[in-house]
């Protein structure tokens, strides 16, 4: 059935796209996501997919081509990162506002300036409020699995929204890891046939997209978008349950690791979660009740479920691989705090900013954070809510 392979995160994303066999890909290369489309275009050249490849002159145009192809009535996918996503920003809102099921792989990368091509979450956080569904993946396996599930979620008849699947630039996108594919036949049956909704190419029934909606109706469309977002977690779990049947791999809205009986916890997304779990194991062996929560579905943010999963802890550290300048705290910290704010009894929260521009996240940074959480759980004293770690002072 499925076979184990040693591949990069980018190849994993490209293989999931090959299985989904999109009708159209509009794309423009950008490090570290270039590799995704480079591999995918070789599938196109070798007739392994039926995809029409549109190589545009910029990411703004790439997303525009995706939008045009999606309203025309096709399955559409692309990939990008960093400045590319920044340039797409205007079109990202249009893709979600038109309710188009476009799927985008993202090799998360730092934003310029200073110019940096390495992994952090600044690009994903920049598109946080664009009305897309966001997944973050710890490794190549999760990248592949999330990408395959993304088509099902985006194209679900109750949802019809664009989905981005992130994995850490270079750390995951370019490292070779062991992972397991879903074989082509099973994968294709899982993703299923694309069903167009109100396609422009149905010329017997003319329609138009993108009308002017003014003060009298705009709020109704925004409320409808908010409402469909609320349905996403249910569909994500439904699709995950089906995916488990074909792959044996179980996914939730987030991953809880040794969290149920934990007194202190770390919340950390994507590749750094792996290192953190190792450090947690060494502390657990010493009798420290520490656990981890790794967000997977980042937008819509599963506030209620996350609040329930963390509320019993005495102290929680949220690790952000991006900063909100002038917003005081990192974006993930703000979300996790919101999830816990409503409880009368809630953990003391601290925020660590780590790994910007691909700075290595080492076990000693997790140890430093856990030691601080142990102290806070004991005496309740917080030296500073937010701190940059792994930075030269």
């Amino acid at each position, binding site marked *: 059935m499925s076979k184990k392979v040693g591949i990069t995160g980018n190849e994993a994303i490209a293989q999931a796209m090959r299985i989904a066999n999109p009708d159209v890909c509009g794309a423009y290369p950008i490090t570290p996501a270039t590799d995704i489309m480079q591999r995918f275009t070789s599938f196109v050249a070798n007739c392994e997919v039926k995809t029409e490849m549109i190589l545009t002159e910029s990411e703004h145009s790439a997303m525009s081509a995706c939008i045009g192809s999606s309203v025309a009535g096709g399955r559409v996918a692309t990939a990008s990162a960093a400045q590319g996503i920044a340039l797409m920003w205007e079109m990202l809102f249009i893709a979600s506002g038109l309710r188009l099921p476009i799927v985008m792989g993202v090799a998360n990368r730092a934003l310029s300036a200073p110019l940096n091509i390495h992994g952090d979450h600044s690009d994903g956080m920049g598109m946080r409020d664009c009305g897309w569904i966001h997944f973050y993946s710890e490794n190549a396996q999760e990248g592949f699995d999330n990408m395959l599930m993304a088509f099902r979620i985006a194209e679900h008849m109750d949802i019809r929204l664009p989905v981005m699947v992130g994995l850490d630039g270079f750390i995951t996108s370019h490292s070779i890891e062991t992972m397991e594919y879903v074989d082509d036949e099973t994968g294709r049956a899982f993703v299923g046939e694309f069903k167009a909704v*109100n396609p422009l190419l149905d010329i017997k029934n003319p329609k138009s997209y993108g009308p002017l909606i003014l003060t009298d109706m705009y709020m109704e469309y925004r409320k409808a978008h908010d*409402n469909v977002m609320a349905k996403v977690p249910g569909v994500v779990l439904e699709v995950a349950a089906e995916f488990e049947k074909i792959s044996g791999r179980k996914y939730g809205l987030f991953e809880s690791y040794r969290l149920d009986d934990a007194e202190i916890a770390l919340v950390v997304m994507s590749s750094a979660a792996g290192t953190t779990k190792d450090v947690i194991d060494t502390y657990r062996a010493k009798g420290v009740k520490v656990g981890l929560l790794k967000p997977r579905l980042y937008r819509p943010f599963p506030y209620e479920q996350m609040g329930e999963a963390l509320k019993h802890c005495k102290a929680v550290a949220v690790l952000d691989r991006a900063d909100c300048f002038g917003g005081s705290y990192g974006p993930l910290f703000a979300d996790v705090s919101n999830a816990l704010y409503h409880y009368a009894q809630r953990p003391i929260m601290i925020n660590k900013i780590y790994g910007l521009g691909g700075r290595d996240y080492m076990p000693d940074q997790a140890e430093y954070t856990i030691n601080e959480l142990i102290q806070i759980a004991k005496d309740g004293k917080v030296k500073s809510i937010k701190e940059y770690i792994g930075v030269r002072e």
Partner: protein
Amino acid sequence: MKTWKEVNPGAVILEPGSARKFKTGSWRAMRPKWIEENCIHCLLCWVYCPDMSVKVKDGKREQFDYDFCKGCGLCALECPGKKGQKAIVMEQEGN
């Protein structure tokens, strides 16, 4: 008016030609005026009008359709008129 539960997902318009129901003439600041005696019925105004607001019957030019004319003035600019006398002039709306 529709509630948020009733709007079409993605604001797609499924009724062809429904723009007819949305009378954009009220946006006009300048109003084209047709001076019939200067008109040679060349229909250049009909060709250039972006809003199909020049009405034509049996190959002859008729009045403007002010429900949709946005007053862009293209017709007045292109109109050759008769012996240097324009058959369309733009006037301030409301005067």
